[in-house]
């Protein structure tokens, strides 16, 4: 089956075994089939050790499937000669911003990937400035990255990916090390890029609140695809989430407890505001 025009990522019957591991017969991932289209915002959720990071690494060819294949805009990640294109299309943001900033100023850091493409200096400067402006980093361009806040560092890392004009951003727990303000900052930035520039996002997270804020949630469990559906549906199926050792948002969890106490709350409550509104309207009726 040929890739659809709007398909960015296609994983077909992917198995992955870490080579040389003691557990050579137990795959880190098995039988994964997944398609991600242009502009989709997908949360990738699952317990520790379920294969989330492994899967993300397969999507920009840091790892190659043992069986099956990963196609990025129709190009197999297993073909060496097209790796630069695969990695341009799918840029990666890691958990710890300190591990991915390489240069002595923000400007050089954002330019790093472009320099490797051997573009003319003028072109590089233009693209760096444009990207920095888009992410509100103009004033920080001459700063050393290590003096920035955690949220700013992650935005610099995002800028370094964005400047390559990706069509998909892969993020591995990008907010795990950040404070609440930094977290909001990064999430808003990514959401805007997704909405305004139609960039697909695959976002690995342990935070139910973050998963609930995406369009689609994919759950991995023990290396297998356990769920794939609209966020509003997957993240409100508490019985299923609990079965995998996962949690719903605080609103979903509290609503479930209150339903046990026979509060007639609607099933689709996902966010705090929905729970608050529902509870208050109950008050008015009684």
């Amino acid at each position, binding site marked *: 089956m040929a890739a659809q025009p709007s398909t960015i990522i296609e994983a077909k019957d992917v198995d992955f075994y870490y080579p040389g591991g003691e557990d050579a017969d137990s795959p880190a991932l098995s039988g994964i089939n997944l398609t991600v289209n242009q502009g989709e915002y997908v949360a990738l959720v699952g*317990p520790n050790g379920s294969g989330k990071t492994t899967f993300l690494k397969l999507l920009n060819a840091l790892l190659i499937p043992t069986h099956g294949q990963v196609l990025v805009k129709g190009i197999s990640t297993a073909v060496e000669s097209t790796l630069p294109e695969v990695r341009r299309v799918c840029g990666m943001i890691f958990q710890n911003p300190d591990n991915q900033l390489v240069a002595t100023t923000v400007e050089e850091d954002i330019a790093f990937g472009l320099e490797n493409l051997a573009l003319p200096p003028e072109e590089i400067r233009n693209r760096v400035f444009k990207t920095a402006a888009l992410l509100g980093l103009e004033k920080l361009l001459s700063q050393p990255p290590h003096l920035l806040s955690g949220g700013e560092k992650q935005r610099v890392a995002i800028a370094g990916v964005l400047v390559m004009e990706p069509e998909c951003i892969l993020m591995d727990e990008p907010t795990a090390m950040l404070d609440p303000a930094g977290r909001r900052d990064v999430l808003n930035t990514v959401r805007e890029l997704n909405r305004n520039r139609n960039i697909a996002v695959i976002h690995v997270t342990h935070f139910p609140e973050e998963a609930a804020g995406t369009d689609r949630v994919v759950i991995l469990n023990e290396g297998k695809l356990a769920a794939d559906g609209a966020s509003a549906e997957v993240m409100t199926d508490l019985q299923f989430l609990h079965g995998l050792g996962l949690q719903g948002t605080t*609103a979903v969890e509290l609503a479930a407890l209150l339903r046990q106490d026979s509060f007639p709350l609607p099933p689709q409550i996902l966010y*705090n505001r929905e729970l608050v509104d529902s509870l*208050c309207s109950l008050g008015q009726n009684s």
Partner: protein
Amino acid sequence: MFIGTEQLTHTYMPGTPFATKALHDISFNFKQGDFALIIGPSGSGKSTLIQHLNGLLKPTSGQVVFEGKNIGSDKQELLRLRKRIGLVFQMPEEQFFSETVFDEVAFAPRNQGFDENEVENKVIEALEKTGLDPNELRMRHPFQLSAGQKRLVAIAAVLSLNPEVLILDEPTVALDTAYRKNLFDLLTGLNHKEKLTIIISTHHLDEAAALADRVLVLKQGELAMFGPAVEVFGRREELYSLGLALPPVTEIMHGLAEKGMPVSTSVYTLQEARREINKVKRRDRS
């Protein structure tokens, strides 16, 4: 005073052009048996403060006090002190260096000069305290363990010296909800049963807020707030203005209160919220 500081100031690289004041005039006091939280935005000085509490960093001025005495800077004294005040770093498993779980946990007792029999006992006891099975895991390579098990091994390595105070810098980073709950259950047990004083820094208040006796809030190296949890989490607007958040359940209670429901907002767990909402709603109906 059990453990705390008096007018503690710390400047990194003093007397150089890079001199940075990380802490300024910090005075506080945690009581024996406290479960204490240190919160604050990224870069506010949490890790710097924590590293003073067992003498890893020395004050530029002011002092660190343990059991009413300045901990001073005598090397032998500090070595003895670090037996009593254990510190678990952020992402501690990244610093594993041994071939087996046993050797990893045995490092500190061996370093303190215990003989191999005593070391063996201490290692087994420490692993058991964290809920890990010594027989199953002792000869395993630390890197073969799951993320949650690795974190527990790192904590066991510190518990091996039977400290009276256990300090953890961001202990739940990158753990899934099940491991996070498990870790907080462990800390609660150590606090209640073993009477350990627990001090943690964290950005995530889901579990921590309900356990906290005392909360210290840092803002750009200065003490912004210090007091019982109810008092600190009651200062909502100030916390927001620092870029911090309230525990998620508390946010919901504030939402309800703002809409006129007469609920308490000093609520930090789902079960407390459930009771409180039931109480108010029952009163409504009667």
